[in-house]
């Protein structure tokens, strides 16, 4: 989908809403992250030692999530995508930078100040078995948002909860059951019902289908898409699975070791990837087609991702990059469109790959 078609689609979806409380119009940023940094101190042994080591989970990320779209954050373990999502949700306090929600700076908001924003952004978690309190009944879990924000009490809650259960494809009569009685896919539906209860503006989906069976994944992905249409939701979708992401996203941001290395509309990313890491990721995805699997470019990266405790200097990918040159070790590249790319497609690389170039066989010296 081309960029302007994409915008039209988002506007079209958003216009069907009468969400007067949202000041961002469809296509405008609902969430803005400005130079967000998140570091975790590492506790070392010893009663009085002050640790000097830090986990650099997120390093200088600036992103916006536009109203009505699905922005995907993709990357492997240690890239910081989950941490970043939790910074958006204010589950973590950022070390530096700004988090702006619908025009309001919520970076340093207190618990009380955050309450109205808690109703507007919600989260769907990865683990269907850990995201529901096993000792509480399902109706009570889904009814939590109404209780916490004092919107409906006791008997009033029940019909609203049952309505939500039907909306996500659960049998409303199972209101009084415990999570242990449901399958993985059904539990995810319960989690989704809880997340949409107060009709939030933004939902952060943290690997929502990774723990589910393949035949159930498609059901949940379709449900999320349907809900987005019906309720005018904006999604920040976190996943390590590039196959899933292709089906749900409008734009994709690829993260590596705490930084965004490429950001583009979805089809552009898959068909015209510029960053060597993106190419490597795409080539590593197992494809259920033996002929295509044999025919495509195979890039095998050497070694494992370095630890976020001690990230490499300059471009963090340079130790594993087949195209790395001296400049890559000293100077961190900035996100900018590669030559010939539209403004929507930005890459952080000193030597971005052109369409015809193959990562496996090209070196920097060969670039014309």
């Amino acid at each position, binding site marked *: 989908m081309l960029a302007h078609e994409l915008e039209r689609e988002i506007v079209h979806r958003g216009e069907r809403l009468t969400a007067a409380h949202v000041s961002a119009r469809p296509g405008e940023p609902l969430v803005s992250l400005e130079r967000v940094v998140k570091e975790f101190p590492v506790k070392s042994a010893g009663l009085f030692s002050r640790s000097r080591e830090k986990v650099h989970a997120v390093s200088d990320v600036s992103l916006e999530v536009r109203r009505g779209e699905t922005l995907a954050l993709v990357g492997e373990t240690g890239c910081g995508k989950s941490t970043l999502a939790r910074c958006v949700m204010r589950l973590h306090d950022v070390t530096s930078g700004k988090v702006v929600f619908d025009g309001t700076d919520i970076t340093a908001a207190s618990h009380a100040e955050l309450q109205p924003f808690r109703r507007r952004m919600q989260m769907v978690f990865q683990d269907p078995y850990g995201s529901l309190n096993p000792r509480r009944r399902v109706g009570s879990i889904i009814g939590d948002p109404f209780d916490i924000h004092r919107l409906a009490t006791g008997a009033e809650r029940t019909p609203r909860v049952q309505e939500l259960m039907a909306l996500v494809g659960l049998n409303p009569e199972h209101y009084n059951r415990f999570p242990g009685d449901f399958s*993985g896919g059904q539990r995810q539906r319960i989690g989704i019902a809880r997340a949409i209860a107060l009709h939030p503006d933004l939902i952060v989906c943290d690997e929502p289908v990774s723990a589910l*069976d*393949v035949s159930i994944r498609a059901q949940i*992905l379709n449900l999320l*898409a349907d809900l987005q249409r019906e309720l005018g939701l904006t999604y920040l979708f976190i996943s390590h699975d590039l196959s899933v992401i292709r*089906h749900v996203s409008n734009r994709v941001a690829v993260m590596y070791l705490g930084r965004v290395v490429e950001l583009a509309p979805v089809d552009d990313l898959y068909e015209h990837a510029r960053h060597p890491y993106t190419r490597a990721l795409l080539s590593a995805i197992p*494809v259920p087609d*033996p002929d295509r699997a044999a025919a495509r470019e195979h890039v095998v990266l050497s070694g*494992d991702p370095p630890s976020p405790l001690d990230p490499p200097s300059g471009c963090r990918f340079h130790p594993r990059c087949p195209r790395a040159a001296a400049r890559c070790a000293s100077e961190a590249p900035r996100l900018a469109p590669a030559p010939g790319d539209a403004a929507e497609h930005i890459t952080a690389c000193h030597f971005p790959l052109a369409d015809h170039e193959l990562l496996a066989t090209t070196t920097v010296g060969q670039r014309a």
Partner: protein
Amino acid sequence: MTPVSAHPGVAPLLEVRDLRVAFRTPDGLLEAVNGLSFSVARGQVLGIVGESGSGKSVATQTMVGLTRGARVTGEALFEGQNLLAMSPDQLRAVRGRGIAMVFQNPLSSLHPLYRIGWQIVEMIQAHEQVTKAQARARAIELLGLVGIPHPSRRVDDYPHQFSGGMLQRAMIAMALALNPRLLVADEPTTALDVTVQAQIIRLLGRVQQEFGTAIILITHDLGVIAEVADQVIVMYAGRAMEVAPRRELFRAPSHPYTRGLLHAMPRADLAGGRLTPIPGQPPSLIARPAGCPFHPRCTEAADRCGHDTPPLDALPSAVHHLSSCWLTSSSEKSYIVGNA
């Protein structure tokens, strides 16, 4: 219902006949594996694909005697001898030398308090008469073979000092230490990042080619199967739904479940759009529906599917391609399995 081996005329390395594994639970008998038959030829990679509840892990674990408290019937002939009839001591002799296993989570498969080298050496010395120095040299050689850099240094590291991918390589090295004829890899890449997964799959392919080891690769990911398997079994609710050579399975999938899986899978190489899910939930393994286990979710189910369980028969057009489905079955007899 004879399984077809890849090389007719040569006895298969492993032949499983009508394996059934059941567990007694307070709610009834749980039939995890319900009549599974397959064979693996020497040097062949067999991919077993299934979701949770399909019985794929229970089947192979039972074969090597790792399941406790189960009721097991059927045969599992490894080089002609029935594993299911062996005593624990005999099985222990087979494990390691004949059949080696690699599991999903390497961190929980290796002892955290002993060095990697020590664990490999200990295993070698338990089965072979070699000196410690010889065993250690072999351990270093193996670690290098599986692609671990600086093996002479890393042989003295503890498991927690390895990353996920390196640790899985070390597990494979340990599994190969005694030159097993068969390697069973149970979801070896599920817990790994996708770039590391690609490396491990490549490694398994090399193992097959360079050492001639047969591999049973158990996974839920059809993409992984497409990269490395020779023969594929698709399992559902404890039975084999479809058996075919790799290309055949992907080019012309026959069973509605296989086709459903392929359509429900999101693909990175095709432009996005709405997916076609398989409706319903995986079945309960206790109160099984009569007939074909997939019929409650099958969009093409006929009347007969709810009463009789279809046998695993060859397709009319392809003798190496088997499917357990009335739509394509050539057999006229009915075949009722288990409780109605």
